[in-house]
C-alpha cells in the first residue's frame, strides 16, 4: 500500500530524470578512485537545496547506488578499487580480467551488486521498524564483536605463511594508529609532522598498493596487459548470467552478511571482506579463490551492495548513519527541513516511501546502465599498456589528492605503490594489511570504549547472548583449521558426512 504510494511519487517525470542523472554521476564517481560516494554526495548536496526533499533524496541516493556499482569497474580492469568496498572484488575480479574474462567479471559484479541491493530493499520495505530496534542493542562491545568476526572470518585461512600474514597485518595496524587517538584525544606517531595529522587514509593506501603496485609489476613483465586478447561482445552478459545461479549459496550468504553489517552499522567495506572470507572458507572452490573465481566476485559484491543499501535503514529510522555516505545524506535531510528519526516513517510518508520506491527503480536503472557499459569498459583493456598506464597513474594521483585535498597524499600513494610491488615480489599478502588498516581504527575504539564501560573487565564480551554469540563465533572462525582437524581426527566419518551435507 505504502509502497504503491511511493511509486506514485516516482510518476513525476522529473524524478525519473533526477534518477538517471544521479546514477550516471554515481557510476563516474565510483570509477574515479578517491572521489568516494560520501564526497560525491557532499559536493552535490547544495545543488539540491532548491529541490523538493523527495526529488533531492532520489537524486542523491541514486548517486550512491551508482557509486556502489561503479566501484567494481576499475577493480576488475586495473586492480584499482574505485571505492573502499570494492577492494575484495579485486582479489578475483582482476585475475579474471587478466585471463581475458573482464566482461564476465564485470557482469558478475554488477548482477550480484543488484541482487544484494534487492534483498536489502525488500528487508527495508517490510521489516524496517523491527530491525531498527535490533540495531539499538549494539553498544561498543557488540561493535567490537562484529569487527572481530570480520577479522577472524578473513584471517587464519590463507595459503601464505602465517608469519607473513602476521607481518602484513601488524604493519596495517601500525599505520592505522597514526594520527589522532580518538579515545584520549592525543596525537600518536605523528613525530611532530603536521602532514601526518590526518593519518594514513585507507583509500590512499589502497590506490597505491593495488593500483600503482600493479602497474609496476606489469611494467616489469613487459608492458603488456595479459587481458589484451579479450573478445568482447554483448552476449557475454547472457553467458555469464547462465553461470551465476550456481553461486546461489554464496549470494544468499553475501546478502545476509551485507544486510547485517549495514544495519548494525558495520559498513559496506567490512561486509565485503567478511563475505569474501566466508565464501573462501565454505565454498567447494575456496582453495581456488584469488586465481580468478567468479564466486570470489559474487561474494564481496552482494555483501557490499546489501550493506550499502541497508545502511540507509538506521539512518531513516534512528538517525544513525550506517556509512559515511549515509552520514552526508543525514545532513541533507536536516538541510531540506526534515527530521530523521523514529517519526520520519509516520510524518513524512511521501518522502520515505518515495525513497524506498526509488531504491527499487534506481537499482534496476543502475543495473541497465552499467550492464550496457560492460563491452565499453572491457574494451579499454585493448588499448596498449604504454598509453593506458600513464592515464591510470594520473587517475590514481587525482584520486589520492581528492581524498583530503593534500599533495603529500600523492607521494604517500607512490610509496605505498612501491610497498605493494615489494610485497608481491616477496609474496607477502596485501589483504591482511588493507583489512587491518580499514578495521584497525574502528576495532580499537570499540574495544577501548567497551573497556571503559566495563572498567577493564573482559567478561563484557560475554555479558549478553548477542555479544557472546558473536565473539564465540569469531573465535571458532579463527581456530577453524584446528577445530576441523580435531573433528576430522575424532569422528572421521561424521566429519565427512557434515562436509557432504554442506554441499
Amino acid at each position, binding site marked *: 500500500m505504502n509502497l504503491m504510494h511511493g511509486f506514485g511519487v516516482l510518476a513525476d517525470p522529473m524524478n525519473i530524470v533526477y534518477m538517471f542523472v544521479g546514477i550516471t554521476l554515481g557510476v563516474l564517481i565510483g570509477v574515479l578512485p578517491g572521489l568516494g560516494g560520501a564526497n560525491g554526495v557532499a559536493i552535490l548536496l547544495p545543488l539540491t537545496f532548491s529541490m523538493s526533499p523527495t526529488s533531492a533524496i532520489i537524486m542523491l541516493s541514486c548517486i550512491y547506488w551508482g557509486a556502489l556499482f561503479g566501484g567494481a569497474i576499475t577493480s576488475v580492469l586495473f586492480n584499482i578499487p574505485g571505492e573502499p568496498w570494492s577492494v575484495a572484488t579485486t582479489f578475483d575480479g582482476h585475475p579474471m580480467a587478466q585471463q581475458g574474462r573482464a566482461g564476465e567479471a564485470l557482469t558478475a559484479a554488477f548482477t550480484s551488486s543488484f541482487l544484494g541491493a534487492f534483498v536489502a530493499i525488500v528487508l527495508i520495505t517490510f521489516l524496517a521498524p523491527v530491525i531498527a530496534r535490533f540495531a539499538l542493542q549494539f553498544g561498543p562491545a557488540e561493535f567490537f564483536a562484529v569487527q572481530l568476526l570480520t577479522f577472524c572470518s578473513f584471517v587464519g585461512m590463507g595459503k601464505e605463511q602465517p608469519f607473513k600474514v602476521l607481518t602484513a597485518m601488524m604493519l596495517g595496524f601500525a599505520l592505522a594508529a597514526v594520527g589522532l587517538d580518538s579515545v584520549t*584525544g592525543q596525537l600518536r606517531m605523528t613525530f611532530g609532522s603536521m602532514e601526518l595529522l590526518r593519518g594514513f587514509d585507507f583509500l590512499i593506501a589502497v590506490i597505491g598498493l593495488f593500483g600503482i603496485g600493479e602497474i609496476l609489476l606489469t611494467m616489469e613483465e613487459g608492458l603488456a596487459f595479459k587481458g589484451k586478447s579479450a573478445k568482447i561482445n554483448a552476449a557475454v552478459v547472457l553467458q555469464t548470467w547462465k553461470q551465476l545461479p550456481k553461486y546461489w549459496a554464496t549470494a544468499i550468504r553475501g546478502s545476509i552478511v551485507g544486510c547485517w553489517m549495514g544495519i548494525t552499522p558495520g559498513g559496506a567495506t567490512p561486509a565485503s571482506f567478511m563475505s569474501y572470507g566466508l565464501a573462501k572458507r565454505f565454498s567447494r572452490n575456496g582453495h581456488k579463490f584469488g586465481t580468478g573465481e567468479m564466486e570470489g566476485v559474487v561474494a564481496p559484491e552482494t555483501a557490499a551492495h546489501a550493506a550499502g543499501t541497508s545502511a540507509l535503514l538506521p539512518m531513516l529510522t534512528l538517525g544513525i548513519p550506517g556509512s559515511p555516505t549515509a552520514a552526508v545524506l543525514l545532513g541533507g535531510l536536516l538541510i531540506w527541513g526534515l527530521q530523521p528519526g523514529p517519526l520520519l516513517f509516520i510524518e513524512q510518508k511521501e518522502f520515505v516511501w518515495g525513497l524506498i520506491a526509488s531504491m527499487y527503480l534506481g537499482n534496476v536503472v543502475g543495473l541497465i546502465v552499467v550492464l550496457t557499459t560492460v563491452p565499453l569498459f572491457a574494451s579499454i583493456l585493448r588499448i596498449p599498456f604504454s598509453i593506458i598506464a600513464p592515464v591510470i597513474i594520473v587517475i590514481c594521483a587525482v584520486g589520492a589528492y581528492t581524498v583530503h*585535498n593534500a599533495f603529500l597524499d600523492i607521494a604517500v600513494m607512490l610509496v605505498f605503490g612501491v610497498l605493494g610491488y615489494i610485497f608481491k615480489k616477496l609474496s607477502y599478502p596485501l589483504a591482511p594489511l588493507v583489512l587491518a588498516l580499514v578495521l584497525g581504527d574502528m576495532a580499537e575504539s570499540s574495544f577501548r570504549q567497551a573497556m571503559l*564501560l566495563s572498567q577493564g573487565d573482559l567478561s563484557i564480551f560475554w555479558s549478553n547472548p548477542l555479544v557472546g554469540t558473536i565473539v564465540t563465533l569469531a573465535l571458532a572462525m579463527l581456530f577453524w583449521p584446528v577445530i576441523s582437524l580435531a573433528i576430522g581426527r575424532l569422528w572421521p566419518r561424521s566429519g565427512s558426512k557434515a562436509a557432504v551435507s554442506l554441499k
Partner: protein
Amino acid sequence: MAVLESVSRLKAAAAITCVSLSAISITTLTSTQALAWEPTKSVEFIVPAGTGGGADQMARMIQGIIQKNNLMKQPVVVINKSGGAGAEGFLDVSGSNRNPHKIIITLSNLFTTPLATGVPFSWKDMTPVAMLALDNFILWVNAEQPYKTPKDLVDAAKSGGANSSKMGGTGSKQEDQIITAAIEQATGATFTYIPYKGGGDVAAQLVGNHITASVNNPIEAVAQWRAGALRPLCVFDAQRIDLKEPIANNMSWNDVPTCKESGLDVEYTMLRGIFTSPGVNADQIKYYVELFQKVRETPDWKDFMAKGAFNTTFMTGDEYKAWLAKTETTHKGLMEKAGFLAK
C-alpha cells in the same frame, strides 16, 4: 531577565546593522569610484571536521543558501580538513597569509585542539569575521530511567559509587568531555566518559541504554525526544531557549530549564563562527560580514536555526574578539582543572 537581556542585545545588533547598512549606502553614494572588494575567484570554505557532522551541515547549508539566493558571484567550495581534531583545517587557514578567498567555520575545537594536542595555533592567527550562532548543549537521559532533574542524575552518580554512571560524548577532550568535567567539578560526582565518533551515535547509544546520559546538541537528539525515547533535563546556556513551539508531550524547547536554575551551575555553548586568513584588509572583512548578514536574513537560515534550537547571537568586530578572548580563557581554565592540557 536573561531573556530580556538577549532581546535587547539583538535589538542593539539590529540597530548596528541598520546603521552600518546606511553607512554603506552613504559611502557608495559618495564614492562611486572606490568599488567595494568582492571575491575574484572561487572561495574555499574549510570545515575543520568530517563530512556529516554539525559544522559540515552548517557549512553546506550556507553554501546552498548563497547559491540559491545568488549572494556571491563566485562559487563557494566546501572542503573538509578534519585531520588532528581539526588542526589540519585551522593550520591551512592560519598558514595562508592575506588570502581572502579562504574562510573557515569553527567548532569548539578552535580552542580545545591546541590545548589538548599541543598543535600550535590560536584564533589570533586568523582574522575573526563573525559569530553566526552558538550551538546549545542539553543534558539528556533515557526516558525509561527515573531521572527527572539534573540533581536526580548527579545523586545517582554519587550514590552508585565511582564510575557507575556513564556519560557518552563526541570525541575526546573536546566540548562534550569538557562539559562532563565541568559537571564533575561543580557537583563532586564522577562519570565515566565514553568517547564516540559522532553525535548521532551518542544519541542512539543513549536510546539503547548503553550509556547513562549525554550532552548532545538539540539537533542530534530532538527526534528521539519527540519519539519519547529520550528526556531533556536542562540546557547549558545562560538563558532558556527562546522557542515556544511544542516539540514533545506539549513541552517546548523553552520549557527545558537551564542547568543553573535547576541547581547545576555549569554554562557552556559552542561557537559557530567564521574566520578568514590572517592579514586580510578591512574591505574584505566587511564583504564577508555583510554576506553572512544576508545569509542570516533568509527564511531557510531562520528555519534551520529553529530546528536546531540554536542561540542566534550574532557578533562581529571587537565585540566578537572580546568574546573569543574570554571564551579561550574559560576553556583553558576548565581544561587545566580537568587535566586535559597537552604535556
